[in-house]
């Protein structure tokens, strides 16, 4: 197990460096001068050159990348052009809200997905299976930003039960786990949960069906095990794969929250990314993407290790 873990961690190093390279290069594929957002329109040539030197844009690209990576390793991702504050602090503050949203959505989506998947897989080819599968397909096909709008229309505009936008009552600056804040979380969390719900349902359904059709299940039943006992075996056998899929989905929710956060004005990393794009705040754009991608990479690493820990077949392979 230790050897496997060590090997997986070593594999991650080149990935992290390449991810950093992609994030670094993103700024350099942007058309126009990256200084455009800070420079006044009537800036003199000297001022432009001065700023270019201050940001290090006058050096050759590999040198710039090396310096940028070195500073990033020390937690310095530069300062936001729009606000002048350090990028890392800005991103970490926003990531907290995204994590809150992703965890709430994961609880809803994974619970629903596992339940629907088990039921559909157990009652395969019956109407129960068809209903559960339809839910799953609708979940993965719906444009989630549109679903968010529909929920706002129904629960905020028509029924006036839940707030439409924001992450807490006005005047509140930080998240708290009380109803005043939680009611802001309900709609974005449900919206975020539909895709993982659909994918987990499909995965668990397929796994359940496959496991139930194996010979050992027949043997378990023949030796007189009750269906609840059979189910325990199904869950044990399905767990490693289901866990891996759920881990990946959690990563997608953390990294892909921009559309939902925009619909609900949820002050998370996606919302930050959106404003970075439209203010052409390149250091902020670069930093947010880097941190979200790193989250994703490390989550994948954790999932791999956890999967190997509960499924002894993987380490050997």
């Amino acid at each position, binding site marked *: 197990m230790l050897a496997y873990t060590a090997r997986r961690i070593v594999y991650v190093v080149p990935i992290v460096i390449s991810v950093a390279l*992609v994030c670094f290069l*993103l700024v350099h594929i942007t058309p126009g001068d990256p200084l455009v957002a800070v420079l006044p329109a009537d800036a003199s040539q000297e001022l432009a050159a001065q700023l270019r030197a201050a940001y290090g844009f006058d050096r050759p690209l590999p040198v710039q990348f090396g310096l940028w990576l070195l500073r990033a390793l020390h937690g310095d991702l530069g300062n936001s052009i729009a606000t002048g504050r350090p990028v890392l602090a800005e991103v970490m503050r926003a990531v907290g809200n995204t994590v809150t949203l992703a965890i709430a959505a994961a609880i809803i989506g994974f619970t629903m997905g596992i339940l629907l998947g088990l039921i559909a897989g157990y009652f395969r080819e019956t109407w129960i299976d068809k209903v559960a599968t339809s839910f799953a397909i609708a979940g993965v*096909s719906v*444009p989630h930003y*549109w679903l968010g*709008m529909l929920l706002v229309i129904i629960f905020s505009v028509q029924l006036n039960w839940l707030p439409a936008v924001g992450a807490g009552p006005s005047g509140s600056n930080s998240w708290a786990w009380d109803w005043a804040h939680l009611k802001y979380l309900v709609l974005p969390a449900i919206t975020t949960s539909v895709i993982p719900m659909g994918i987990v349902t499909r995965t668990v359904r397929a796994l359940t069906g496959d496991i139930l059709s194996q010979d050992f299940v027949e043997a378990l039943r023949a030796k007189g095990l009750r269906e609840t006992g059979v189910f325990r075996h199904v869950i044990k056998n399905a767990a490693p794969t289901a866990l891996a899929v759920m881990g990946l989905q959690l990563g997608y929710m953390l990294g892909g929250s921009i559309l939902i956060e925009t619909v609900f004005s949820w002050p998370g990393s996606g919302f930050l990314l959106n404003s*970075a794009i439209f203010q052409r705040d390149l250091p902020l754009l670069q930093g947010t993407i880097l941190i979200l*991608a790193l989250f*994703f990479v490390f989550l*994948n690493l954790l999932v791999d290790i956890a999967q190997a820990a509960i499924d002894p077949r993987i380490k050997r392979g």
Partner: protein
Amino acid sequence: MSELPLSATADAALQAAPATKARGYWATVGRRIMRDKVSMACALVLLLIFLSAILAPWLGLEDPYKGSMIRRLRHIGTVGYPLGTDELGRDMLARLIYGGRLSLVIGILPVILAFCIGTSLGIVAGYVGGKLNTAIMRTVDVFYAFPSVLLAIAISGALGAGILNSIVALTIVFVPQITRVAESVTTGVRNMDFVEAARASGAGAFTIMRVHILGNVLGAIFVYATSLISVSMILAAGLSFLGLGTKPPEPEWGLMLNTLRTAIYVNPWVAALPGAMIFAVSICFNLLSDGLRSAMDIRN
């Protein structure tokens, strides 16, 4: 036929056999999918949406660009405006139908482009193997380190708003995924006897890939690619929804959804219509792709 003795039927069957050519794989798949009601219903819906988008100028619709301040945000069912009007008083029916033109192109084109690029890369990586395989597949791994929504938004955010940029961004998102599938099916085929035989009979690498590999892997890659169209439609419209795709006043479902967002307090159901179009196309492609997958799985 039933009156004939058994031997005669068998004889007749034997005589008929050489005349009817054995049905090919794709003909069987086609026949199987034709019998699947859900797939056919989806194909019909998609056909209607495609045809109406292509034929939009000849359908006698209102001008999708012409607005009017006095008839803004009419409700669904208003006389003359069956699906109401948008925030600038433009006919929603016309805008939804015309919107299909751009929305379908920016949603489907990236998958087609990625299919071509990814299949080529994957087959070359899988067949040639060695260092080239490592180089291609490790590059692909890097893109897998980004959640696809984040990657699409990062690239199109960096490139700036525009239809072309969003197509490029989505193509870059899908190429690695298709490459991975293509590489894995090619690796499964490359050591089979018929490839070996072709190599022994002196066929060059390019010929083997084009003739012997491509025909055997294309089906699997194609099905995988069709399953990506749904995601691509949602992401493409999503980029426009964020303001990274096309620009107003162009009719496009994602952008329409964005500009109508402020109208949800006045006329919510009209505001939700463009999203329903995206949903319809996306779910139909998903179901059709599922149908195709099970139709191609002849063993079951």
